[in-house]
C-alpha cells in the first residue's frame, strides 16, 4: 500500500481493476440476457452470437404471466411513491410538533420512536399478519394483499428512522423564524407548510433516498403482506416468483434481472450526487 501511494499510476490501475471486478457481475447479466436457452447453457461466459436475442427475451419477459412486468413495475411505482409521500409529509410534521412542544408526553413519544429503531422486522412479522387478519374479521377493512395495507406497513416501518432524522434537523432551526412568521399572521399550519417544510429540503432528500432504496428492493415485507400469486406484486416478488417457476431457465431469469435493474440504475446515474449525499448524511446523523 505504501508503494502505491508514491506511484499514483499503480494505485490507479489497482483501483480500476477492482472497479471492473465490481461491475463484472452486471456484465455477466448483460451478455447472458442476449442468449437463448441453449447458448447460455453451453457458453455462459462467451459473448452472445447475436445481440438481437435480447429483444426476443425482453418480449418474453414483458408478456410473461408470472412476472407480469408492466403491472409489477406499476405496482412497485405506486407502492414506493405513495409510501415516500406519506413518510416524508407525516414524519416531518410529527417531528416538528415533537420538537416544538416541550412536554413530558411529547418527549416520551419521541423516545418511543427512537427505541423502535432497534426492533428487527422478524419479531413483528408473524403477529403483524395475524393482527391485520383480525382487523379484517372485525371491521371488514382489508389490509393484507392490498395497496393500502402495504403502504401502511411501509409508513409504520419507515417512520421511526424518519422522525429521528427530521427531529435532529428541526432542532437546529432557530425558533425566531417561527415567531416572525406568527407576527406576520401565519397560523401554526401555515408556519409549517410555508416556512419550515421548504427549509427541510436536504433532509427530505435523505429520507426519500434511504426509504426509497429500501422500499423498492424490499422482498420479505411484500412477500408477507401481499403474498404470492396476488394481483398486486412488486418487482422483487415478481423476479422471485419467476425464478421459482422457471428454475434454471437462466436466459430468461437474467433478462428479468436486467429489466428489474435498468430503471433504478438509470435513476441513480441521473441523480447520483444527491443520492450518495443523502445516504451518507442519513447514516452519520
Amino acid at each position, binding site marked *: *500500500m505504501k508503494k502505491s501511494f*508514491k506511484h499514483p499510476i499503480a*494505485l*490507479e490501475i489497482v*483501483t*480500476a481493476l*477492482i*472497479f471492473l471486478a*465490481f461491475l463484472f*457481475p452486471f456484465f*455477466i*447479466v448483460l451478455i447472458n440476457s442476449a442468449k437463448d436457452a441453449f447458448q*447460455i447453457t453451453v*457458453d*455462459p*461466459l462467451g459473448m452472445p452470437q447475436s445481440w438481437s436475442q435480447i429483444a426476443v427475451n425482453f418480449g418474453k419477459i414483458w408478456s410473461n404471466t408470472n412476472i407480469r412486468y408492466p403491472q409489477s413495475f406499476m405496482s412497485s411505482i405506486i407502492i414506493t411513491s405513495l409510501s415516500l409521500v*406519506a413518510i416524508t409529509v407525516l414524519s416531518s*410534521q*410529527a417531528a*416538528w410538533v*415533537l420538537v416544538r*412542544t416541550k412536554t413530558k408526553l*411529547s418527549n416520551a*413519544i419521541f423516545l418511543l*420512536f427512537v427505541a*423502535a429503531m*432497534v*426492533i*428487527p*422486522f*422478524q*419479531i*413483528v412479522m*408473524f*403477529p403483524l399478519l*395475524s393482527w391485520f*387478519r*383480525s382487523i379484517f*374479521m372485525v371491521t371488514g377493512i382489508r389490509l393484507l394483499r392490498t395497496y393500502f395495507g402495504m403502504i401502511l406497513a411501509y*409508513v*409504520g416501518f419507515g417512520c421511526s428512522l424518519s*422522525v429521528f432524522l427530521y427531529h435532529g434537523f428541526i432542532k437546529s432551526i432557530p425558533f425566531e423564524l417561527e415567531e416572525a412568521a406568527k407576527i406576520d399572521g401565519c397560523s*401554526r399550519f401555515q408556519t*409549517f407548510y410555508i416556512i419550515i417544510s421548504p427549509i427541510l429540503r436536504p433532509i427530505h432528500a435523505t429520507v426519500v433516498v434511504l426509504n426509497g*432504496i429500501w422500499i423498492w*428492493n424490499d*422482498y*420479505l415485507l411484500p412477500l408477507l403482506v401481499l403474498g404470492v400469486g396476488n394481483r398486486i406484486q412488486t418487482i422483487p416478488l415478481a423476479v*422471485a416468483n419467476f*425464478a421459482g417457476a422457471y428454475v434454471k431457465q*437462466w436466459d430468461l431469469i437474467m433478462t428479468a434481472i436486467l429489466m*428489474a*435493474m435498468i430503471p*433504478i*440504475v438509470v435513476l*441513480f*446515474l441521473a441523480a447520483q450526487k444527491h443520492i*450518495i449525499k443523502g445516504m*451518507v448524511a442519513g447514516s*452519520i446523523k
Partner: protein
Amino acid sequence: MTDKQENRIVFWVFLTPILFAFLMVIIIPFFIGAFYSFTNWSSTARAGATLDFVGLTNFTESFRDPSFIYSFLLTLIYTVINMLAINVTAFLLAVFVTSKLKFKNIYRVGFFIPNLIGGLILGYIWQFIFNNAIPSLGDILPGLSFLGDPGNLVLGNRSSALMALVTVGTWQYAGYIMMIYVAALESVPAELHEAARIDGASNVERVRHITIPMIAQAFTITMFLTLVQSFKQFDVNVSLTAGGPSSMFMETPLLGTELLALNIYNTAFVRNRMAMAQAQAVIFFLVLIVISLVQVSINKKKEVEM
C-alpha cells in the same frame, strides 16, 4: 382561540396519522408477538380461538432445536466474517478513492451500484456465476477444468457456500460503507498529515496514528450498520443458497447455510411452528440488542482512548 389551544390542536393533528401507522404496524404487533411467544399459537388458529398459555416451553424447545442452535452459531460466524470483510474492503476502497486518482468519482459510483439493487436479485446473479459461469471456466482455460466437476461447486459445499454469502454480502454493502468512510476521511484536516510528513511519518504510520483515530466515530457507525445488516441477512440467503447444501448437526440433517432470519421464517411457514418461531424471533431480538450495545460501547470507549 388562544395560542395554547391552537398548539395543542396542531400537536395532535400533526402527530396522529404517523402515530396511528406506528402503533398499528410496530407497537401493537410487537406486544402481540411477545405474548404469542408464551402460547401455543399456530397459523391455523383464527382470531377468537382459544390460546393456551404454555410458559417458557417455546423458548426451552428452541434451545433444544438443532436447526435453531446451528443457525444461531452459523449467523454469529457469518456476522463476524462479513463485518470484517465489508469494513476492510470498504476502508481500503475509501483510502483509494480519496487519493489523487484521475477517475475517482467514477470508481465511487461503480462501487456503490450493487447497493442500489436488492439482495434478492444480487443473490440470483451470483447463483448463476457460482453454478454456471465458474464451472465453465474450464472450457476457456483447460487447467481450470476441475471447476466443472459437480463435487467442486462453490455452493455445493457448506464452508465455501458460506464464503459465497460473505462475498455477495461484501459486494452488496462495501460501496455504501465506503461512502461513510470517504465522508470521514475528507473531514480529516490536511494540515495534520502535512505536519506528520514533515516529522518523517510514513504513509502507513500516518494512516495508523492520524487517520484511524480521527475517524473513530465513523467506525462506530460502520461497525453498527454492518453488524445489524449481517445479523439480519435474509434476501441473499434465500436467492443464493436457499439454505443449502444439506448438512448434519447434533445427528440431525439440516440446511447448511440457513442463517437465523431464514431459519425463523422456515420454522414458521415450512415447519409450521408459529409460536416457536415467534419465541425464536424474541431471542433473535434480545441477542441483537445485547451484541449491538456491546459493540457500540466498545467502539465508544475506543473513540475516547484514541
